[in-house]
């Protein structure tokens, strides 16, 4: 691969390198998300049954298609590290930007924690050695991937592209190995998902399933974090994000079909390894081992992308003085936000040891849904402040405002779903964001330069 090693200019400082193409954007987005097919989505079956998991697969797919469309338009126009943070800063205001950056850091750090726990548990389960714990595997995963991110974004995302592709291909191989066109031989959907057990909790179970339905696709919006490091943001970001979303919709549908046709919903809802279990149930050692390796690779790719994204969001906060500028340092040789990477490392390690998989996933989902709620309002404000034709957009999403309205409505449903299981956590997290917002608005913001925050070459927004 040929790359042009030209620095991305941001003021006079050493800045991030523009070395990435659409394949890296795809690898970043799909790499973060694909682990959701290997674990997490199946907890939706626990909450509402196998059919509920399928319904939310498609409905939440609609939510994320809206996210991808909206994100592609705004990010192809606001191409800066921090992704949605930079969007909020230019469209809504500093306090919103500060909160969005925290949503991003929480969502990605907790997703990284979930990935590391999954990887550790998978190895322990495979080893089957009494007394072996996942702690050392978790620590090694987080530390090694942080080091990889420290060393450079190009290498990080090249690695992600390869391991994500292998994990994805393993799902396709499993799908075609079980003869999906025939029922009765390997797949037994009709006997496992029956009228009596398809929706064991009724429609309230379908709504509850939204909480983990998010896990099918959570993180695809992370593609925007690479905005300052892609060679052509206006082309690469929409292309990579939309291609990633299509890839994931196909993977989610294949995963549900195979798993729901091979396991009773009660087991599917509690296993940490639905695809690996499906591989085992085929009776083929080759498929079993392939899916074991793919589970590990998917977890690695996701954690890798999450470290990349969380560090860039944190870095952006430092660069704009929302947090101490110490975090905004770029490594003079590797051109990475190395201090942010190192700062978030112990936080991820700490939560990997005190939270379990289910709770870490929920922390991540909570921050994700808060962010999507912001995005639905943000696109409305973007179109109002800079109507079509007033500035150059890399991509203009169709059917506005329908995707924004759909996204907002689905976020409300998901908040209700979270309330059904984790209402106290939601209130605790929102209380945290509220208090930290007061701290920022009344104290921290005094250290921020006002006009310097607006870096886009746009005309004055309308109505201000």
């Amino acid at each position: 691969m040929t790359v042009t090693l030209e620095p991305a200019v941001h003021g006079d400082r050493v800045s991030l390198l523009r070395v990435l193409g659409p394949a890296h954007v795809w690898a970043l987005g799909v790499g973060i998300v694909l682990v959701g097919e290997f674990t997490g989505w199946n907890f939706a079956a626990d909450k509402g049954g196998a059919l509920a998991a399928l319904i939310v697969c498609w409905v939440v797919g609609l939510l994320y298609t809206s996210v991808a469309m909206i994100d592609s338009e705004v990010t192809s126009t606001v191409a800066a590290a921090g992704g949605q943070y930079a969007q909020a800063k230019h469209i809504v205001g500093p306090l919103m930007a500060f909160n969005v950056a925290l949503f991003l850091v929480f969502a990605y750090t907790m997703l990284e924690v979930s990935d590391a726990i999954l990887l550790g548990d998978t190895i322990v389960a495979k080893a089957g050695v009494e007394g072996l714990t996942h702690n050392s595997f978790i620590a090694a995963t987080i530390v090694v991937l942080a080091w990889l991110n420290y060393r450079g974004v190009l290498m990080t995302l090249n690695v992600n592209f390869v391991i994500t592709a292998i994990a994805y291909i393993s799902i396709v191989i499993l799908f075609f190995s079980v003869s999906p066109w025939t029922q009765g031989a390997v797949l037994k959907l009709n006997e496992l998902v029956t009228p009596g057990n398809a929706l064991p909790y009724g429609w309230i179970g379908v709504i509850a399933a939204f909480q983990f339905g998010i896990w099918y696709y959570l993180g695809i919006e992370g593609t925007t974090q690479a905005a300052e490091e892609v060679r052509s943001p206006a082309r690469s970001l929409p292309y990579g994000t939309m291609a990633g979303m299509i890839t994931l919709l196909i993977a989610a549908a294949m995963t549900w079909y195979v798993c729901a046709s091979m396991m009773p919903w009660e087991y599917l809802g509690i296993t940490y390894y639905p695809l690996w279990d499906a591989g085992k149930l085929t009776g083929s050692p080759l498929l079993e081992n392939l899916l074991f390796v793919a589970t590990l690779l998917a977890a690695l790719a996701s954690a890798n992308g999450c470290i990349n994204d969380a560090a860039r969001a944190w870095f952006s906060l430092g660069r704009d003085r929302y947090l101490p500028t110490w975090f905004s340092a770029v490594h003079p040789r590797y051109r990475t936000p190395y201090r942010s990477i190192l700062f978030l490392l112990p936080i991820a390690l700490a939560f990997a040891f005190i939270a379990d998989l289910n709770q870490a996933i929920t922390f991540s989902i909570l921050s994700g849904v808060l962010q999507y709620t912001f995005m639905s309002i943000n696109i409305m404000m973007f179109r109002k402040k800079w109507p079509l034709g007033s500035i150059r957009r890399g991509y203009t999403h169709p059917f506005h405002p329908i995707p924004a309205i759909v996204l907002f409505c689905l976020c409300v449903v998901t908040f209700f779903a979270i309330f059904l299981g984790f209402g106290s956590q939601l209130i605790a997290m929102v209380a945290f964001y509220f208090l930290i917002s007061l701290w920022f608005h009344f104290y921290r913001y005094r250290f921020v330069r006002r006009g310097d925050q607006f870096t886009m070459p746009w005309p004055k927004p309308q109505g201000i």
Partner: protein
Amino acid sequence: MSRYTPPEQSKAGQVFDIAVVVVAIFVALWLPLKLGLAGAAKSIDALDAKTWEALGQNPTMASIWEKLGYTPETAHDIIQNRFHYVIDWPTLIIMAAVLIGYFVFLFRASDREYRDVINEKFDDK
């Protein structure tokens, strides 16, 4: 509009600010775990007769459970561990109020800050 010049923050002040954020993060994420507030209401609806039939499993389901290494006795606690969805209206109203209040504050305070940014940015030109 005159250009705002922020004060220089001391090193100790920067360290203190970082500490505030880290402590807030840990309290927000760790406290619900510590207080046992995390997790949904799930409980086991115990059955006296522990057979595949009593557990609502047809022969295909039973054969898969057995392939996965389970017997009716060991699968009982998994199959009968059910959610009991109850809408606690006071908690739901509190959650909705907290969420709406949070977003209203965010947008209003952000708007005030944003107007300063825009005025300084575009009045300079």
